[in-house]
């Protein structure tokens, strides 16, 4: 062999090695996952991992987030939008066991079973016929309207017309998990060695507080289109630590958990910064049973004294979208205009309520969970209200668990920070929060007219009539009753070098399925 040929071989080997190395993708995944069992988790870090390890009937498209075929290759929908019939792909679990429609039935039943303790059991329970009774221990599993018609055909019947069913089915709770492995290994089935999945990747290593490593699943039905050899999900809860890792090229992709608000001025100028307005709404919630916020004029005065545009342009600066309405525009539904910035009207309302120029305004405290970003926003609000209305609110930051206790259990607050991310893209998922007696109705809002509109919307087929009904409900909640002060919609943001990696695109729902990721 000549020297030249030898050098060429070495070069080729180096290039091959580089190509192989490049397929190892590392990124920060936020806090340590609570579990790798999709039935028992609800958080974003857990969802990212289960999207790699499991696949439901449908998955989210990389660019639009819209549901596209996953385990199901096609489906038919009954004209009344109640019955969905899915044809599954001929595929196997990662251990070679054939995957059948009965596996889907078993997986969903496991989520519904009370002893599983699935936080999102109600998502199935509220939507599928017979599921609620079973999940409360009042009905047999056989009455749950999910059926394996044959090994490759699965049918589900919902309680009513469900136009957003496909979007809902992308949720973690509807993932297909191997009931046979759960039976065999108990809670330890998610450990490397025992793990069985049907996603594009399989579990290789899991070191708590450190990382989860997944490798390509050669038995995945579309294995030829999976382009990364492995993905490493690092557990890092501190934003600055994660951002420093990105700056030092130790991670390839920086999720939102790696973008410190305090450094947004520098970050938003970077060429690898990607962002798009999302559907999570940031708002402040009134406890409408406590003085002085039991008076709607006071609530409106506070809401109308806020120039939200100034907040997003001058303070937040990451591309957030100011809103005086609560529910983002989706499908045929349009966000209400809300009570926009009008300082004169705000002052008049406050005077009518008995506090002209803020005089005699009772002591008032705003609570928020400890975070630099929330503090900045609260301080800006405090200043805005002092300047505009002459009232002085106190700020109180609470550690996360204490904050939840104050807001949800004791309701010992007057005004509290809040945000809501929809479980599935339908306006009802936002508005349901404010129904009388609802589990998450922390501000104790109650208006029979609102409840009637929401009950009516439940019976309506999707379309303009339902959209208008929900719009009326939002108008009642925000424009008329001002049960809350919406401020802005979050921006979905991340850092990624497009020249090296692809398949991750900024989208409204902020879900990036690892199936699409690739190296350039």
């Amino acid at each position, binding site marked *: 062999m000549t020297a030249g040929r030898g050098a060429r071989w070495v070069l080729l080997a180096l290039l091959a090695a580089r190509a192989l190395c490049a397929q190892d993708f*590392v990124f920060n995944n936020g806090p340590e996952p609570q579990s790798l069992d999709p039935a028992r988790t609800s958080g974003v870090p857990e969802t990212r991992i289960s999207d790699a390890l499991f696949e439901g009937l449908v998955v989210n498209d990389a660019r639009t987030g819209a549901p596209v075929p996953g385990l199901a290759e096609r489906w038919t929908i009954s004209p009344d939008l109640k019955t969905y019939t899915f044809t599954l792909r001929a595929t196997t679990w990662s251990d070679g066991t054939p995957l059948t429609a009965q596996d889907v039935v078993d997986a969903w039943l496991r989520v519904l079973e009370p002893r599983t303790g699935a936080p999102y059991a109600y998502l199935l329970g509220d939507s599928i016929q017979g599921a609620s009774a079973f999940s409360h221990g009042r009905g047999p599993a056989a009455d749950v309207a999910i059926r394996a018609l044959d090994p490759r055909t699965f049918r589900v019947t919902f309680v009513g017309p469900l136009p957003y069913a496909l979007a809902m089915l992308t949720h973690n709770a509807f993932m297909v998990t191997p009931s046979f492995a759960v039976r065999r290994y108990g*809670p330890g089935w998610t450990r490397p060695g025992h793990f069985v999945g049907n996603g594009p990747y399989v579990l290789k290593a899991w070191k708590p507080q450190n990382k989860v490593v997944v490798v390509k699943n050669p038995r995945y039905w579309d294995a030829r289109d999976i382009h990364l050899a492995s993905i490493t999900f690092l557990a890092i809860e501190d934003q600055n*630590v994660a951002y420093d890792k990105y700056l030092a090229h130790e991670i390839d992709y920086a999720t939102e958990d790696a973008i410190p608000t305090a450094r947004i001025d520098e970050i938003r100028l970077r060429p690898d910064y990607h962002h798009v307005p999302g559907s999570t709404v940031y708002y402040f919630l009134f406890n409408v049973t406590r003085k002085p916020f039991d008076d709607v004029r006071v609530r409106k005065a506070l809401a109308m004294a806020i120039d939200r545009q100034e907040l997003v342009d001058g303070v937040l600066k990451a591309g957030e979208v100011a809103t005086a309405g609560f529910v983002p525009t989706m499908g045929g539904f349009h966000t209400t205009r809300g009570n926009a910035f009008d300082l004169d009207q705000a002052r008049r309302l406050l005077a009518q309520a008995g506090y002209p120029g803020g005089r005699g305004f009772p002591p008032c405290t705003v609570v928020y969970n400890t975070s630099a970003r929330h503090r900045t926003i609260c301080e800006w609000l405090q200043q805005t209200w002092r300047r505009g209305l002459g009232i002085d609110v106190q700020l109180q930051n609470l550690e996360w668990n204490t904050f939840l206790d104050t807001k949800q259990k004791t309701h010992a607050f007057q005004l509290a920070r809040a945000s809501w991310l929809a479980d599935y893209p339908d306006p009802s998922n936002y508005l349901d929060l404010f129904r009388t007696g609802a589990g998450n109705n922390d501000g104790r809002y109650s208006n029979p007219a609102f409840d009637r509109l929401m009950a009516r919307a439940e019976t309506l087929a999707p379309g303009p009539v339902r959209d208008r009904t929900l719009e009326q409900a939002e108008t009642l909640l925000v424009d008329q009753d001002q049960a809350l002060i919406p401020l802005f919609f979050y921006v979905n943001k991340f850092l990624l070098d497009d020249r090296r990696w692809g398949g991750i695109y900024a989208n409204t729902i902020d879900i990036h399925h690892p199936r699409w990721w690739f190296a350039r």
Partner: protein
Amino acid sequence: MKRGPKSPMLRFLLRRGLSLAATLFLVITLAFLLIRLAPGGPFASEKQLPPEILASIQRRYHLDESVPRQYLRFLGDLAHGDLGPSYRYQDFSVDELIRDALPPSMTIGALALLLALVGGVSLGTLAALRQNSWLDYTAMALAVVGISVPLFVLGPLFKLGFALRHPWLPTSGWIDDRRGWLTLILPVATLTLPYLAGIARLTRASVLEVLRSDYVRAARAKGLSEPVVVLRHVLRGALLPVLSYLGPACAGILTGTVVVETIFAVPGLGRLSVQAAINRDYTLIMGDVIVFAVLLVLMNFLVDLGYGFLDPRIGHGADAP
């Protein structure tokens, strides 16, 4: 006639063993009650769990029982060496989580302690022997910086200098990362510096004092070489204050790992404890408290043993003359 172990050492061990058990029992009981007083609970979340799901989860972990019953159950499990399942990290038991988290913390802590001790004593001794020289001034200036700059400032500064401005070292991570053992350097250096500084100052002061004592003058008068004088006579007397400092230093290093592990993303016990407290992971908090308590008591015990070796006048028995 008094009965019991004859050797004072054995009696000392027995007495310390008993006090260790009593201390641990007290710590466990207090911690068990205190964490239940904190607002919120292990299964609180922004989207509240439906009541029947919450009830099912609480039943699984016996949280529906009265606190005294939970306490007795906990003690019973503990007697069998079982710390129970983690409430937050549902796929792991507390034993497993601690078993994984202990080695990184111990590695960083032990290295820091060792480096602080060796480095601090050498630097302090050299500074004392060359009193008022440039070496003395430099060493003591460094020591003042080391003592006064807190870990949460020192760590990010090191990171900025040695990992971001100059990419010599990884910013964070653990030895199973791409960069391997290099990940150890910054966390260990951060944790070492304050204690190295403290030990150096203490050593310098006490070496200076011993150098002026009669027995050192006697040793020199006998014609012993300088290294023998320093190593055998001066240091032996001068190290007692340093030894007393080691007890609190160990406690400091244990708590310091909490800060350092967060800054450098080390998968250790300190970070685990912080997350456990934030998440109200009752069983995991108990496990962490027990491990920290045992470590602290053990370290103090070792320090006490060390006194006896350095100064035979300090006995371990009560009847020592």
